């Protein structure tokens, strides 16, 4: 039960973050909003890290440099997310975003790119993607 609540609020916060960024961008600009929210998030995470010490900075050396710079995508993610919310609303934005996310992850899993465990394509995944796209079509009417 508590696990479900955590997961529920996790998802709620993700949507809230997008909406809050969209609101903030109206006042200070979109890149500015991306910059400020990630800066304050960074400082907060850094402070928590100093308290909990659940990991070691030194371990970063053992990770491929490519994976370390993944965070930089955050700039474009926030910018695109905010722009999309302004243009087509939150529901469409989150729907299209999630479908693209799942589809890309699916393609990466099938091909075993980036050293992920290779997965086979199965019917349910295609049915699932079909249902999601149908869902977006229904949203339009």
């Amino acid at each position, binding site marked *: 039960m508590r696990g479900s609540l955590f997961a529920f609020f996790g998802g709620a916060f993700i949507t809230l973050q997008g909406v809050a960024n969209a609101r903030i961008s109206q006042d200070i600009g979109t890149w500015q909003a991306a910059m400020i929210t990630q800066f304050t*998030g960074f400082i907060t995470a850094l402070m928590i890290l100093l308290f909990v010490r659940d990991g070691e900075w030194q371990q970063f050396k053992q990770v491929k440099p490519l994976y370390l710079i993944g965070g930089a995508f955050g700039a474009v*993610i926030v910018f695109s997310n905010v722009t999309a919310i302004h243009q087509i609303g939150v529901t469409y934005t989150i729907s299209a975003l999630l479908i693209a996310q799942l589809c890309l992850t699916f393609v990466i899993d099938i091909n075993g790119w980036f050293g992920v465990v290779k997965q086979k394509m199965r019917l349910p995944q295609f049915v699932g993607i079909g249902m999601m796209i149908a869902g977006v079509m229904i949203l339009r009417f």
Partner: protein
Amino acid sequence: MIPGLLMAIAAGSLVGLQNIFNSKVNERAGSWATTALVLGMGFAASLTIGFILEGKRIFTLQNMQPWYWISGMIGVGVVICLVQGVKRLGPTYAILIVLTSQLVLALLFDSLGLLGLDKVPFTFNKLLGVLAIVGGVIVFKIGGGRKFQKSVVQRK
């Protein structure tokens, strides 16, 4: 309509890619070091791109309201909730609930026009569409007994 959709698709693809990269870092460094790194990188990239495109205007923050300064902490709340959710439920069900609540909340935000965004009227079709997407996510995630990648640091 189309440009907005393309933006959302671009964002989603990058989120998918980023989740995989983040989980690689997470395996070694733990979730808080990873979160700090990811947000720090995102900040640096936003600053750089913003400076290239807008010059010094990137530093002029007009009409800042106090809560703008703490909105970044929502992302930290996301990490706490996802880590705890995945720990208690396992990645499959935790991520299912996360995706579902993202969609339901999106519909709620649009319908109520919260936080001063344009109100997008609620229709029965919107609910039906969201339910179909949620159904699709469930079939996709649970059908066929695939294994799931544990991706704790998920981004907006």
